[in-house]
């Protein structure tokens, strides 16, 4: 078996289970590097990675940048605020510019769903989806799956709860797909305005009562809640949301002792998750950030067509 035999990484749906496992396995080797004093390897020397971010992002962008640098790739950035996008250049034209600069990889974050799919049809470069609209955030989902694998060894038979604004969450969609694929049972929780019935087509459970599921969960993933959803009448107030759906210290007590608490960040402390819970030993929120770099290194590496790793050495 060799690396990923594909040009792009656009969503979880298009990946085979073998590919998902391969990405996670290779990430382990890259993570080992992080304990060394020299954290870079020359596997992508001479390759160019372009981060094309049409939506503000701190951690995802940093994570991709760091991953590219640790693989010794050349990195260029095009962010919406500093580019000609504000002058109204179309995505197609921006991409032609990047192609002319011979970018090997384009990492794109975009507010419109399917924008990376549209891009991939119009470029020869490898496109990696850094999050598109409400649609998909495959690298986040892969790092989430990897983080659970690291703790539990498998996802088979685990009960994973995803809580919050499912409707507007690309993380939720990609998480559901990867968790289900690896054999977990998934329950979605939030108000009906944010958890549409259509989600049951993913073969997941849906509940509007968080307290009923807490004792059976192995993992709970708390999604960030956005103020603008309140303005859209999806829920009446942050106060009520917190009361019904936040992971509070009291609620954590109802959970199993070894429950894994996750959050894709950035956290609204005191909104969807309480301070003490985010700081508790159950929370692996910072670990997720570290793993994100390893997963993204793994994806860059495997998309280059290189063989899976048996171990990293510096030669």
């Amino acid at each position, binding site marked *: 078996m060799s690396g990923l035999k594909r040009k792009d990484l656009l969503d979880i*749906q298009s990946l085979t289970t073998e590919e998902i496992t391969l990405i996670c396995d290779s990430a382990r080797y890259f993570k080992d590097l992080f304990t060394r004093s020299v954290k870079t390897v020359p596997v992508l020397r001479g390759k160019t990675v372009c981060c094309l971010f049409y939506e503000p992002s701190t951690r995802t962008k940093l994570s991709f940048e760091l991953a590219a640098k640790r693989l010794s790739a050349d990195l260029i950035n095009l962010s919406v605020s500093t580019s000609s996008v504000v002058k109204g250049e*179309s*995505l*197609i034209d921006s991409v032609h510019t990047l192609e002319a600069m011979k970018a090997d990889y384009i990492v794109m974050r*975009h*507010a*419109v*769903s*399917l*924008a990376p*799919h*549209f891009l991939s*049809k119009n470029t020869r470069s490898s496109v990696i989806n850094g999050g*598109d*609209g*409400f*649609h*998909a955030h495959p690298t986040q989902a892969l790092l989430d799956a990897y983080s659970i694998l690291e703790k539990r060894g498998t996802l088979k038979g685990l009960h994973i709860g995803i809580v919050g604004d499912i409707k507007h969450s*690309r993380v939720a*969609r990609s998480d559901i797909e990867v968790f289900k694929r690896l054999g977990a049972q998934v329950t979605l929780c939030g108000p009906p305005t944010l958890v*549409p019935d*259509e*989600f049951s*087509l993913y073969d997941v459970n849906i509940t509007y009562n968080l307290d009923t599921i807490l004792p059976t969960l192995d993992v709970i993933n708390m999604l960030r809640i956005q103020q603008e959803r309140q303005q859209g009448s999806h829920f009446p107030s942050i106060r009520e949301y917190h009361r019904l759906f936040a992971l509070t210290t009291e609620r954590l007590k109802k959970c199993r002792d070894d429950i894994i608490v996750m959050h894709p960040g950035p956290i609204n402390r005191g909104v969807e998750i309480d301070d003490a819970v985010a700081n508790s030993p159950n929370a692996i929120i910072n670990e997720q950030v570290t793993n994100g770099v390893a997963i993204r290194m793994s994806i860059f590496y495997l998309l280059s067509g290189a063989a899976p790793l048996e171990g990293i050495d510096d030669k």
Partner: protein
Amino acid sequence: MKIIIKNGRIIDPLSGTDEHADVLIVDDRIEKIKAGIPDKDAHEILDATDCLVLPGLIDMHVHFREPGREDIETIIGGSIVAAKSGFTSVCTMPNTTPVIDNQALVRFIKLEAEKGPINVFPIATITKGSRGEEISEMGELVQGGAVGFSDDGRPIMRSILMRRALEYVRMFDLPIITHSEDLDLSDNGVMNEGATSTFLGLKGIPREAEEVMIARDVILTRLTRGKLHVAHVSSGGSLDIIRRAKDEGINVSCETAPHYFSLTDESIAEQLSLAKMYPPLRTEHDRRAIIEGLRNGIIDVIATDHAPHLENEKKQEIEYSPFGIIGLETAVPLVITILVKENNFSFREAFAKLTCNPSRILNLERGELKTGSVADITVINPDKTVTIDDTFLISKCKNTPFIGRKLYGSVEFTICNGKVVYRSEQGQH
């Protein structure tokens, strides 16, 4: 000038005529329909062997973009595309820049159309500026040549205004043509709300946005005893409402577009913005319901909603891309392939939706094939295939999700007011 169309299968949906015969055209009228009309004195003989000879097709819903966006399409350019597609009459929607809300603009369209090959019947706005605030000077617009009223693309949200428009229009016996949609419920969605929009994470437009507004509009039509024509029906639920209204005797008619009986919202995943239209493509359940609605007569008309867009505008991220696809050139092939070949429609029932029915709704006095009627005639070979590609499409804009499809139904000749305005290469003699 005498033209004879030889050896065709004459189908007149209104009278039910279905026979093999020749058609003699003298000047702009049909002089005779009879088997074995002698060739003598004919200036031209058109061979219609293996072909249907139909009344000239009518498309009561096109966007030709002039005035304002002549870079996309013009009245003459659009008319040439229509002639090639088998249409002898089209109705232009008024959402141009400026919108067609005064008599001078209606006259401009008529004047411009005189230079083109086919009949163009302008539809004017229901409200001034299509702003949904005050009704247009409908009397003036009718005198200028408007055949109906529509604020297409900009649904009238104020119910009192819709009531007044339906009342006022009664003195002209012309329809209010609605783009029935509750914009609050659409909430800036980009595709049908359902399983596909959930998986793709795209904002949905629920079918109820259409159904709620159609329900309001038919109820107001009952109140006012006005005449309502619902444009581009896309949802099966809408048909239930329209059927009930028709059963009650409310003066309502409706149309659908070929894409609603050919495609579903699942096309978005592959075709992206090329499958983005307004109202959005719905589900297979709706597609089946639309086909049944056409069969049982709840849907009176097939109209294309021909909506050209420049490639650089359409080829964008799906949310930024404008709604709509071109429809003229694919209309006949889709009607033949999907309705006749796949769903066993008779030619008569399928083409009634493109001839006598729109003519009746708009009082056009066309859409018939009989002695004495205007010589608007379309000749189609239903068994000949066409491939929808860059060579086939003559429209300047090629925004269609049917690209690459091989379909049945080739337009061989289009005759408008007694003149041959289109002949296919193979049909050339």
